[in-house]
């Protein structure tokens, strides 16, 4: 699929006549992907060089991780806008334990592995909390995650004890810029592993079937015996887990944890990626590969803007147009 993005459309087209709009709806993320690659190839200087492509894939990493979690949340019929703050909380927890330690508790800085484990756990707890408030207390997902989004940055600062902590010259920072064999960025390896895992989850597990069922018809899901509360909690916790990978890897790459900027506005890019990827916002089937291409499309827009000296504000407008086109083609037949 990755090597020939437009091949499936052509194949089905030969089997039986299918409306162009249907094909577009199914493969729209790839359509945008191809268009933006071509566009970039023409207008962005040095776009097709390895360095630029590699940077693109490294920069898209946090958005892609978060968007994968968001795909599951949206598949269940919910939404999570607290993802950026969860990234910050997770990064802050890791950095505090790894770099600073907690002097009031007499806690010296710990090793990277335990610090990371705590960072991941903190993010999962945030997701868990989201899930409980949404499924058990029955509060609207947008409200719950809005609250966590706002409170989360404050919490992140409390955890970190300061606005930013440098990770320079640590082995964590080295890991963030590690290139396997001196060529392949470590982020690319993680993406391959996580995407493969997510595809497995969505295609093969009971969990994903239940998530899809809840997203498709919540009442029916309850009446068929699905434990809607715990499945929903599971979805938001999974999203939190993916946010922690995004947050920590991003912090390691830029060698700093800044609670004000780590993961800021990532929810918009992630939601855009899911929209472009074709997962229905009313809930239903999670489209992992769609989201993968959707995230790259979002990043390509950013690159067009950044590398052609177009002011950043236009990138937001450009993304908005793409999201609207994506959602417009998704609307009910």
């Amino acid at each position: 699929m990755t090597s020939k993005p437009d091949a499936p459309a052509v194949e089905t087209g030969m089997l039986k006549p299918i409306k162009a709009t249907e094909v577009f709806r199914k493969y729209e993320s790839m359509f945008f992907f191809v268009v933006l690659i071509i566009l970039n190839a023409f207008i962005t200087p040095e776009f097709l060089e390895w360095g630029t492509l590699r940077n693109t894939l490294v920069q898209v990493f946090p958005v892609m991780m978060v968007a994968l979690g968001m795909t599951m949340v949206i598949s269940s019929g919910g939404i999570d806008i607290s993802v950026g703050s969860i990234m910050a909380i997770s990064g802050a927890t890791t950095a505090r334990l790894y770099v600073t330690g907690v002097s009031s508790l007499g806690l010296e800085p710990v090793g990277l592995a335990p610090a990371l484990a705590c960072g991941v756990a903190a993010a999962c707890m945030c997701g868990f909390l989201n899930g409980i408030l949404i499924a058990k207390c029955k509060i609207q997902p947008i409200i719950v995650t809005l609250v966590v989004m706002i409170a989360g940055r404050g919490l992140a600062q409390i955890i970190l004890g300061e606005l930013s902590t440098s990770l320079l010259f640590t082995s964590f920072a080295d890991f963030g810029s590690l290139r396997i064999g001196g060529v392949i960025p470590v982020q690319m390896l993680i993406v391959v592993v996580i995407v493969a895992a997510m595809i497995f989850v969505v295609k093969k597990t009971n969990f994903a079937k239940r998530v899809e069922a809840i997203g498709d018809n919540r009442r029916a899901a309850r009446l068929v015996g699905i434990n809607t509360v715990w499945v929903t909690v599971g979805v938001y916790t999974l999203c939190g887990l993916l946010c922690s990978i995004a947050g920590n890897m991003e912090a390691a790459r830029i060698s700093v944890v800044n609670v004000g900027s780590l993961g800021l506005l990532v929810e918009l890019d992630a939601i855009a990626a899911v929209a472009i990827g074709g997962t229905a916002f009313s809930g239903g089937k999670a489209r992992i590969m769609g989201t993968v291409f959707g995230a790259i499309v979002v990043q390509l827009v950013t690159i067009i803007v950044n590398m052609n000296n177009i002011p950043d504000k236009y990138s937001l407008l450009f993304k908005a147009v793409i999201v609207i086109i994506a959602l417009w083609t998704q609307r009910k037949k």
Partner: protein
Amino acid sequence: MTSQLANEDYLLKMKGISKSFPGVKALQQVDFCVKPGEAHALMGENGAGKSTLVKVLTGIHQRDNGEIVFDGNSISPANAAQAQHAGISTIYQELNLIPDLSVAENVFIGREPRKMGFIDWKTVETLAKDILDKMGLEDVDVGEPFTRQSVAVQQMVAIARAVSISARLLVMDEPTSSLSEKEVGILFDVIRALKKKNMSVIFISHKLDEVFEICDRATILRDGRLVGEYPMQDLTKLKMISLMIGRDAESVLERKREAADGLGDRQAVMAATGLSRGRKTREVSIDVKTGEILGVAGLLGSGRTELARIVFGDHKQESGQIKVNDKPVSMKSPGDAIRLGFGFCSEDRKEEGIFPNMSVMDNMTMAILPKLSKAGVLSQKAQREVAETYISKMRIATSGPDQLIKELSGGNQQKVLLARWLCKNPVLMILDEPTRGIDVGGKSEIESIITDLADKGVAILMISSELEELIRSCDRIAVLSEGKKVGELNAKEISEDGIMHMMAHGHDAREDVHDE
């Protein structure tokens, strides 16, 4: 009858009407004639073809064969507007008027008298008032919003609207279903007034008392065919029922007699005592035995569905106890009920049954995922095997396990939902209106699936608004009214007068049961 057709003067003559839907012959060579100034009852069981015939007449469906002559002209309405233009108006059960507009606006909506391009509100109100006055509704303030009016008045307004567009023929489909007795009286007065003005009414109702009160003649359909046309005075309620179901009372009851013998001493699979929850369920006790079909009858809002939901663990009872195989159980969610071996099909397939955007296979196996998987990883092969087995076993019309369920017909969707539980070998099936919205063919298939299940020993609790359906299938019928159980007819009683009484008097049977 054909000779009659030629001689007499009819307002409407439908001759040899046939209509097929994929897989179903809904109407076969049906004749239907209405004289000017008469109220004509169109009778038949659900699925007999009444609504299809009316839809052909009013342009919602197009006939495959036959001829419609209205007022001397041959017509073929392509849509409701054309039928209305010809002079045929339909008063639907759910009124298609606009709640927030005033009464007057609703009467004239879409064809308001205008002055210099603007709607002339004054004339609208005067004309509306005039029409309502003529119908004996002097008290209605035509300027008031439509929603403030009682359902009866709303219905009158719909009729007024029809009258004002000079309809010659009114089709009323279950017009009294949401009216009080007093309101029914008002409606009938209006119908009588309309008859005097030589307007004709096609009257469809399940309530036989009303049909006998207001109608002059009746046409009876069964399984899409014409049974006959009868003057009302030639019919009794019992005769009409026999004609509608196509059997005399005896044959209906055969299954029951056979079943009645063995059931008495079987153990109850599920026994509930004193279930209460709010005002909808009050001190209800019921039990279902192995292999028994227990019917639950009652009006809409009598607490039937609420009872089913408590038994299935969807709602928690406030008091009372449920025992399964003689052991008290506590159910906090449907999941608990399912673990006890219960299955449930909701009355609302679309909102509470199907996962519309998922495949037939996924829909069918959603309740047995753990069985088909190892460590949470689902075996699609096993899933497909189950789906294929039940698709062929239940003769589900689908292109295959991967087809989306929303693309299937109502009857086939219902079969998938039944299969969802059958593949789990349930001990108790709770079925809320299992044949609602399903065509004739599908209906009888579903009914036979249900009776087969019972014969295999599954206990079945079946709710239905269609008494005939309950009578055909059930071994015992519990009657609910206003949240209370007002009576129960056991196999023997069903086989004797009680059941015919219930059939003949429809919902009012509950009062008689009360007196027992």
